[in-house]
């Protein structure tokens, strides 16, 4: 069985049979609560279906893009669970879940915070042909005039990017990957942005480090 986890938008967990039938999906609109609930939901799902952790033979995890803090929870959970079980784990671009499920030309948008959206463009087979990337809504709108926008990102700047809000279901990510439409990625977040950190300006008249001048006692 396959365990799939994505915390790039909210929490989406799925357990699938190896032939991709019999899907159990657990969804929670719990952005900000990934740390509390991700492992808890997996435990509950396994218990509810009477599945032992021994039955899980593979893990697939959404590697974003998405708000970093929540995203990392799903990746750490999937990666460390697979490590503990000694089973393989694969990363897949989270936006592919929505793009593949749509099966039509579209641009998927999700919340990137800081007044920006993550986006990726898909063809009619659900294959990603541009992105993932991050831009201001106006830039995305200008880049994709006449395209259909879908995904949770459409609800944030409806005046600029309008379309249909489609939830991310991680089982679709597994289907996209199995259909060879979504490529395997390293199990690490697609950050797309450098951490903001500013180096302090050197202090005026900074003293020489004492290690270099041990005899500075005059």
């Amino acid at each position, binding site marked *: 069985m396959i365990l799939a986890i994505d915390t790039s938008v909210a929490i989406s967990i799925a357990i699938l049979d190896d032939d991709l039938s019999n899907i159990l999906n657990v969804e929670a609109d719990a952005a900000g*609560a*990934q*740390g*509390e*609930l*991700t*492992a*808890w939901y*997996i*435990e509950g799902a396994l218990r509810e279906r009477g599945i032992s*952790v021994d039955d899980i033979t593979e893990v697939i995890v959404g590697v974003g893009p998405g708000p*970093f*803090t929540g995203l*990392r*929870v*799903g*990746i*750490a*959970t*999937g*990666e*460390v*669970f*697979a*490590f*503990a*079980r000694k089973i393989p784990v694969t990363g897949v671009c989270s936006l592919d879940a929505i793009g593949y499920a749509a099966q039509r030309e579209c641009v998927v948008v999700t919340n990137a915070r800081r007044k920006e959206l993550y986006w990726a463009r898909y063809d009619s087979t659900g294959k990603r042909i541009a992105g993932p990337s991050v831009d201001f809504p106006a830039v995305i709108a200008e880049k994709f005039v006449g395209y259909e926008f879908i995904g949770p990102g459409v609800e944030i700047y409806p005046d600029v990017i309008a379309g249909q809000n489609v939830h991310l279901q991680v089982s679709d990510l597994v289907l996209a990957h199995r259909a060879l439409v979504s490529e395997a990625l390293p199990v*690490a*977040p697609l*950050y797309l942005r450098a*951490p*903001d*950190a*500013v*180096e*302090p300006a050197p*202090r005026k*008249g*900074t*003293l*020489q*480090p*004492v*290690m270099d*001048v*041990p005899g*500075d*006692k*005059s």
Partner: protein
Amino acid sequence: MTEPLVLGIETSCDETGVGIVRGTTLLADAVASSVDSHARYGGVVPEIASRAHLESMIPTIERACATAGVRLEDVDALAVTAGPGLAGALLVGVASAKALALGLGKPIYGVNHLAAHVCVDQLEHGLLEQPSIALLVSGGHSSLLLVPDVTEDVVQLGQTMDDAAGEAFDKVARVLGLPFPGGPYVDAAAQLGDPTAIDFPRGLMTAKDLEKHRFDVSFSGLKTAVARWVERETKAGNAVMVNDVAASFQEAVVDVLLRKAIDACLSQGVGTLVIGGGVAANSRLRAVATQRCAEHDITLRIPSPKLCTDNGAMVAALGSELVRRGRETSQLDFGTDSSMNISKVVVR
């Protein structure tokens, strides 16, 4: 019967720590630090720390298991820092520890970082006396605690009103042109200087302060005094004697911390003082603590410097003690708490 094998994970700041203990025997203390990535920013950058934790987690777990000579599946229980600390950093450790608990089918404790700093001393000096007084000093905390039972009953007597002790060291190091983190550099410079050269102020030590803040500390006044002093000397064209400033500053910090800690022991009728946290590695603090505890017939316990700084062994040590006492474990839906109060030792 062999004692339980406990794996502890610590990610509250910039150290990814994974420790393994059996009972009170330390088997492994693997630490991956991102401190070098933060040095040029003059402080820990939370997002950089979180990224580094995720990258280091599995290699650090592997290293700990290899050092301990145990297989992951032999671990009997997990423990992880749930707070206090940097929110994003804590989450990586907690998610990882929960995934281990889930994957291995083993119980987990989400624990308080401060209690772990106290408990780690059991790995070197045997079970803690009950009660003990604990002085925790690091870049993130300065707390004076009454510890009747480290697994469930810890009372905060005092804390810093502003900067943590280690923060004061970092800021003074910067004023003196010393690298980050400042603690070891100030300590080294101070060893070449005269601690009585400059009479820097002792915060919250006046009779009036002691009425309201008997066990609290404050370092911002001291930090400002050092900066002013350096500025004045520089303006006057005098060569600033870095070693003397470092020694005098350090003396003021150590003096206040230990006066408050000894007062806590005597007033509470407690015969044991435990010192922990990164600043507990400071050579002057260790020396003065040894001397003053001896004067007052107080048993002093300080872990070796490596166990004083943030590490996974301290979390494993507390986890092991929780198992030994048969304390209730955490449910998998526990959260992180960046400002977790010490009155809570385990989140459930």
